[in-house]
């Protein structure tokens, strides 16, 4: 029979509700009730023709010898899932200073205002700006982090002006982002940022009490001053000139609704329910700040439901972590989230130029250096990009994040959407080469993919519309 169905290569997993999720080589998925799954594997020809057609359309069923059209289609689907790393480093993070007025308990890096030693030298700033242009990428994002970089606005200004001047001849599309508490933001800074199309990214951990508890400063008014900074930025630079990130601490876990509501109240279009790794801060604070993956799931699910609640009311807001995962699950256009790329984007699409004069593969990697582990240094600032990319650190990271080389990933239905995170592994175990399923990175993402696939399976048409909308990559100017 010409159209006899043959089961094609697939990976599957039983979800909590008993349904089986299967994904095919193309990244398409289907759900099976348990009995149907056995029939699919053993005698797919007994499935209804309608069901056979659905499974063929997802490349879970096919012919014994798939012909050229289907083969080409699947190859292009796989390539589209993995092509975001190849264009050369596009995200360049500069750490002008570690100085910060805050003394957040979960922060590993920041130093007090009186500390003069943790600041990037002028020569290193200039060299970093020049290295950025060695990347062939036509679009570049230059992000300033800290510490609080606005404490050294002079260094930001120097870097942006140098890059702008160079770009007259280079004509790259460059986006600037400054991550800051905004406490030091003033009108002249806004004018400069507006003139140069700079976006601001700040931190709001939730309502006043929670935020001020997470982010202590001598005046105990971190929240008030950040909100004032947001208002000033919006007034001078436009509503969408500033975005916010939150960090989930142990104190956040019981307040998912209030945190989401705070973002809605402040008029943000995005909220990122960002977990803190259990090893992501000084060991002495583990008991005080740490929480389990399960505790984070409960918080995340609650927060996500709250965001969906507001979306259904017509509020324009999305949860970024969910968007990133839905993009992997549903969209053919990959948004290129660094931590889930295979090979990893760390050190390939991202480079961090640290105040200490060294280049690191990611923000987490330079934080690791503050705890004494400098093994992920790629080279000194000023080293030609080619040499940085040829560094042993990078090849270790690429190797350790290749899903093809990781047996556990090979069997995982999420392997086209996800990848090991070797920088995380280094932080958790002191080596990038570990069995993926032992890492918190894997446990967290398995759980989140499970939850989102279940959400997708049970979604009505309006919810499907919303989840697909979130799956579309956000235009660069909004992120």
């Amino acid at each position, binding site marked *: 029979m*010409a*159209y006899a169905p043959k089961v094609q290569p697939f990976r599957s997993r039983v979800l909590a509700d008993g349904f089986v999720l299967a994904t095919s080589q*193309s990244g*398409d998925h289907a759900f099976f009730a348990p009995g149907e799954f056995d029939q699919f594997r053993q005698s797919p020809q007994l499935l209804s*023709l*309608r069901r*056979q*057609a*659905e499974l*063929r*359309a997802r490349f879970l069923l096919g*012919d014994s010898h798939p*012909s*050229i*059209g*289907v083969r*080409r*289609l699947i190859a*292009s*689907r796989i390539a589209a899932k993995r092509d975001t790393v190849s264009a050369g480093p596009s995200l360049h993070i500069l750490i002008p200073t570690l100085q910060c007025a805050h003394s957040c308990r979960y922060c590993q890096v920041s130093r007090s205002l009186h500390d003069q030693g943790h600041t990037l030298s002028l020569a290193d700033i200039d060299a970093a700006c020049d290295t950025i242009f060695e990347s062939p990428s036509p679009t570049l994002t230059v992000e300033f982090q800290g510490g609080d970089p606005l404490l050294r606005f002079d260094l930001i200004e120097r870097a942006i002006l140098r890059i702008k001047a160079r770009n007259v001849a280079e004509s790259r599309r460059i986006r600037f982002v400054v991550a800051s508490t905004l406490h030091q933001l003033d009108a002249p800074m806004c004018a400069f940022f507006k003139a140069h199309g700079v976006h601001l990214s700040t931190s709001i951990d939730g309502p006043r009490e929670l935020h001020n508890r997470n982010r202590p400063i001598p005046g105990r008014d971190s929240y008030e001053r950040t909100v004032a900074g947001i208002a000033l930025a919006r007034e001078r630079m436009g509503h969408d000139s500033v975005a916010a990130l939150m960090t989930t601490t142990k104190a956040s876990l019981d307040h998912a609704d209030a945190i989401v509501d705070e973002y809605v109240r402040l008029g943000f279009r995005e909220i990122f329910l960002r977990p803190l790794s259990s090893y992501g801060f000084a060991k002495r604070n583990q008991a005080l700040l740490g929480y389990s993956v399960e505790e984070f799931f409960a918080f995340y699910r609650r927060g996500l439901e709250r965001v969906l609640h507001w979306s259904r009311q017509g509020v324009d807001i999305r949860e970024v972590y969910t968007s990133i995962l839905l993009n992997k699950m549903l969209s*053919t*256009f990959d948004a290129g989230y660094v931590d889930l790329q295979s090979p990893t984007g760390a050190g390939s699409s991202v480079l961090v130029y640290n105040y200490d004069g060294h280049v690191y593969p990611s923000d987490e990697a330079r934080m690791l250096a503050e705890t004494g582990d400098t093994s992920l240094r790629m080279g000194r600032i000023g080293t030609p990009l080619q040499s940085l990319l040829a560094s042993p650190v990078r090849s270790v990271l690429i190797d350790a994040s290749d899903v093809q080389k990781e047996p556990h990933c090979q069997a995982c239905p999420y392997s086209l959407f996800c990848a090991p995170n070797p920088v995380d592994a280094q932080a958790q175990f002191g080596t990038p080469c570990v069995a993926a399923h032992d890492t918190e990175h894997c446990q967290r993402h398995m759980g989140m993919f499970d939850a989102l696939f279940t959400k997708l399976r049970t979604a009505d*048409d309006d919810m*499907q*519309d919303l989840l*697909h*909308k979130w799956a*579309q990559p956000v235009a660069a100017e909004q992120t």
Partner: protein
Amino acid sequence: MHRVVSYANVAAEWFPELRLLVLARSADERAAIEDLQSAGLPNVRWVESSVLQDGDIVVPRSVKDEAVVLLRESDTHHALFMTNRCNSYCLMCSQPPTPADDSWLVDEAVDAIRHLRSPPLLLGLTGGEPLLLGVGLRRVLDAVSKYLPGTQVEILTNGRLFSDWRVAAQILTGLSTPVRWLVPLYGHADFVHDFVVQAPGAFDETLAGLMALQAQRQQIQLRIVLIEPVLQVLPELASFIGRNLPFVREVALMGCEPIGFALANRELCEVDLAQWSDTLELAARQLRRHDIPHLLMNAPLCSLPKALWPIAQRSISDWKNVYAAECEACCVKADCSGLFAWHERGWKPAPLRTIESAEAIA
């Protein structure tokens, strides 16, 4: 092949490589053209006609004292018929194929293109299956590029032969003519599509053809004719397109033309679109989810749920477009596709209704 010209324009439009058919209105004008012929201009003839128009491209039939008008400047839809041969036998084909060798049509098309006085905005190439012409199709496209700069070409093709890289290279490599390829897709799985086009293996070849077109960054419009076996799977098909063919420019959902094979396969092709509103809305929703632009063609507004009116086009070529008695008092007639002229002998896409102004505004 001749270009019809008014007497006054003969001098301005004469070129040695063109043939002109001059609209002569008087004995003097006829005599003047005959003088030109005897003076050694073989490519000028006169004609007396009240139906031919200045600028028409015509093929005179010498035996019958008549001429076939291939192209007319004042028409909004210009099309050249490329072949009546085809490698598919679609259930609802409006132009049933014949096997006879008609490769002379290529020369006729190139000749017609050469004789056009000014480039039309849009030129359709239809069949049959134009890819069967191979390099002949490329000759036609190169003629458009040479003689009709600025003209956008639309080619209706099943794309199957592009699965052969030789054909793809022959027709697409270095192609400078702007072409939009109109490619039908009738299923999300091989056995569904292959049944509709009555050709085993067609689904796979069309997919490969679409990939070949995409590799050359060609513009693609997918076409889906709304007959019963297709409506049965339409939302799934829309989702398949969103996941696998997101590079297409748009998807056209088209009412079936009640003519040709559609009449013979009436039990599969005659549908009451109004009964399929939910299916159409769900399919449109699937396409929206994947950001695929889409439109409805050949479907009168009264056959569609109101939510889909904004994407319904006035799509039926002027020469075969009619309206029914119900349409006369209808307040959305001006925005409506109307009907195919031959719906009387076939069927209507749905029971027609006169839309009152209250409904249109609501």
